């Protein structure tokens, strides 16, 4: 059954894809994002401390979380003709090679405005230990019929 604005209920869950983090996945994200910061590449550099923090090795890009949350939201929204309009995230814990992460969404509220319908979604990313590594909030628009083609332009 496809999702629609009418049949969504506060508390509805969105399951995101599991993602295995490895040195190779982080390297591929460097190539995909053009972000070659040594935080993600250079083990010797990562022996340094950053302020009071020592990561003990390379870490995944925070924006890899952002990309995975987006993948979850758009895979959920597209079949309903809905559009990801906003995503806000913050990082809570570093993610390292060997971790498996998975984003999750929970419908927080629904609101109709003068011209459209909006769903607010709490998002988070958990690792294999159940720890929250990223959290945030998204807005998905469910356009009223007829408007999507014009807006998708």
């Amino acid at each position, binding site marked *: 059954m496809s999702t629609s604005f009418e049949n969504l209920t506060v508390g509805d869950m969105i399951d995101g*894809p599991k*993602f295995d983090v490895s040195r190779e*996945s982080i390297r*591929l*994200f*460097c*190539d*995909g*994002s*053009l*972000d*070659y*910061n*040594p*935080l993600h590449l250079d083990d010797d*550099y990562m022996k*340094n401390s*950053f*302020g009071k923090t020592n990561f003990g090795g390379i870490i995944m*890009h*925070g*924006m*890899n979380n*952002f*990309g*995975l949350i*987006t*993948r979850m939201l*758009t*895979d959920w929204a*597209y079949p309903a*003709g809905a*559009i*990801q*309009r*906003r*995503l*806000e*995230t*913050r*990082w809570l814990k570093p993610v390292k090679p060997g971790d498996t992460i998975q984003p999750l969404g929970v419908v927080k509220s629904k609101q109709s405005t003068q011209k459209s319908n909006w769903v607010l979604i709490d998002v988070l990313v958990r690792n294999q230990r159940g720890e929250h590594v990223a959290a*945030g909030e998204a807005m998905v628009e469910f356009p009223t019929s007829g408007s*999507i*083609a014009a807006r*998708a*332009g």
Partner: protein
Amino acid sequence: MTQAPAFETDFWKDANLRKVWDDIVPGEPRKTIPYKLTLEAIQLYCRSVGEDHPLYFDETYAKKTPYGGLIAPPSIHILLMFACTPTDDWMRTPGTINAGQSWSYNKPARPGDTITLQARALDKFIKRERLFVVHDNVFFNQHGDVICSGRGQTIRPA
């Protein structure tokens, strides 16, 4: 490897030319460069996060949707941030830690678009001995349409 062969992947290069926290002036525009977004670059980004939606890969499918053709996923600004800035931009400074971002999406980017960026630091502050800069960005396509706009916070190397 499939795109932007001129892209400098050694972020230590030109590191001495980049602004440190003390030099960054909130409100001052960052230097940016137009970037031709290719299908190859979109699909390489997609593979790096496991995106496999046919809107990004299957033109025959995409043409039949309201989008009328292939698009990039909303999160493509992750790539555009580095593609549209020069090697001496402070976002490349080794040790730059991303503390969080918020983005609003208007129109999808498409393969073949020439993307431009208007960007600046908007604010800087010290919190618990850490040096923060707030950055503020808007990406446009070649028609002058806003693709997306966003803000983020980075912690600068001390």
